């Protein structure tokens, strides 16, 4: 009796995993095919012949791809660090310091993030132009932070709300000030929350397109998504180049996720209370 609904659940999970992973698998397979293999009919499922030529070509012929990836990395890392710093402090104040009207403020913060980024573009461009922030890492980091900070505040505030308040009270009795409590009690105990939020912000920033396209106009400053999107030529669509570049652009994110996923361990507060 009990196994039937579970079987259905597993089938559903497997189906959704296959559907969401198929494009990525196809992308990886495509990057390993020859040009003939890509256009072959009926379609090749497995690369035949299997080749790494696309990777060698892209690294030797268009080294700017590695630059794009580096740019993306710098911007995403900067955005993550800044967003976690400000989002952490704001989230702590809003969820734990008994601020008046904290709920209203939280809704305001959420409302701000509801503007579509495209609607901000003209004024952002103007301002960044006059401030000399176009084509700088600082500029795009500021823009991305503005975009993802509301999310960070919400995520971290709700994580802080799950911490037992007695630990902070004990710290107050021990003589810690609010900043000290935040730094040496709340941050260590909220590490899983910071890692999870940071990972998501990093991926958001890595993939963000419209702002990166408009604010980084010089080729040497482009981020990976923008750079790759500019590969298609006027007459041809170089599938092998695009799929290979995309795979290369995904790799850093995969590595970072793999590293930090191990860090997202629950039960870090175990032993504090009962």
């Amino acid at each position, binding site marked *: 009796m009990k196994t039937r609904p579970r079987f259905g659940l597993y089938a559903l999970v497997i189906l959704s995993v296959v559907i969401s992973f198929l494009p990525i698998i196809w992308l990886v397979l495509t990057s390993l095919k020859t040009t003939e293999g890509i256009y072959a009919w009926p379609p090749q499922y497995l690369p035949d012949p299997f080749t790494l030529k696309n990777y060698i070509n892209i690294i030797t012929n268009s080294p700017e791809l590695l630059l794009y990836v580096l740019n993306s990395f710098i911007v995403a890392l900067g955005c993550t660090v800044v967003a976690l710093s400000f989002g952490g402090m704001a989230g702590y104040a809003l969820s734990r310091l008994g601020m008046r009207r904290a709920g209203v403020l939280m809704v305001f913060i959420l409302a701000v993030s509801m503007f579509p980024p495209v609607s901000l573009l003209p004024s952002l461009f103007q301002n960044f132009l006059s401030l000399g922030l176009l084509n700088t890492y600082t500029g795009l980091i500021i823009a991305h932070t503005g975009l993802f900070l509301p999310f960070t505040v919400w995520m971290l505030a709700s994580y802080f709300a799950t911490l037992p308040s007695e630990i902070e009270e*004990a710290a*107050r009795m021990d*003589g810690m000030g609010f900043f*000290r409590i935040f730094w040496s009690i709340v941050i260590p105990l909220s590490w899983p929350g910071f890692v999870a939020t940071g990972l998501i912000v990093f991926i958001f920033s890595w993939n963000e397109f419209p702002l990166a396209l408009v604010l980084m106009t010089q080729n040497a400053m482009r981020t990976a998504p923008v750079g790759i999107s500019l590969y298609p030529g006027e007459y041809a669509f170089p599938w092998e180049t695009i799929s290979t570049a995309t795979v290369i652009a995904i790799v850093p994110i995969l590595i970072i996720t793999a590293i930090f996923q191990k860090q997202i361990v629950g039960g870090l507060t175990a032993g504090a*209370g009962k």
Partner: protein
Amino acid sequence: MTEVKLDRIGKKYGAVEAVQQFDLTIREGEFLVLLGPSGCGKSTTLRMIAGLESITSGDLLIGGDRMNDVDPKDRGVAMVFQNYALYPHKTVFDNMAMALKLQKVPTAEINDRVGRTAEMLGLTDYLQRKPAALSGGQRQRVAIGRAIVRTPKVFLFDEPLSNLDAKLRVKMRMELQELHARLNATSVYVTHDQVEAMTLADRIVIMNGGVVAQVGTPREVYDHPADEFVAGFIGSPAMNFLDLTRDDTGGWRSDCGSLSLPALPVDTGTRQRVRLGVRPEHIEVSGAAAQGPLTFPAQVLLDELLGADALLSLGIGEARLLARVGGTGHPVKGDSVAIRLTPSQLHVFDCETGAAFR
């Protein structure tokens, strides 16, 4: 001079008065227990002394100094929390040393003080462990150690034993008694457990709905409860209550008519109705043939053996009384018995106000 004086202290949350006009002086070295059901304001009172909760009205004096607006760390108080509230990412040593480190006490002195406290509490072997690797009792000992290390003027305990299992609770209760005898520091202890209150307290404050119902030694609150609430709260099983009406002859009769008393041991003025209270352990149960004043025939409706004691549910006509008797050779369900009441062990309360007649 570490007397704690609460001068008509009150706490309001919006329109809700959590604590009203709390007026009490806690003597130096006294172990004071705040006792009451949940939501009676006992924890709020403790948190106001600690400085974790602001004081809406009245003054808090510790050692003669007004503390209402003083930071918790500067009040000279240390608190032990119900959930221990240890820093889970720090070792036992660091947990205990934190307050001293923040006070910039020299390292050698910190090591010495933490070392001595750990030895006193049997924690020496665990100093380098994290709280997660300790048992519940050990964690609570660390929490107590963290308070002791600071040598505070006043110890505050917020239901420190309620997370422990029954056996450990008894053990820790005794340890706390020994500790208090040793340190002799002024202590305020919050609990809803009357056994803890009776065994630990020099004086008990019983609170009900944000108001102090009675302050007294364990003996006083047990022997002379100030009102019906205290009488019913202290003692286990709870006191029996019976409503009595004055009859034509000036004597008193229970509503069902099966119990009659020629007189009450206290002056009830012109009242025509009162509520009689008698503790289960003060009902003397003997053979059915017994005769004498304040002796009534009764039926055993139910008997429950607790071990050393047994509880008898007795029917006297329509009236029901619970009696506590010795656990060997006691009457059983269905037996006919006689019960005798002793005038000095009867409590009489005002039906309207609940206050005791003295």
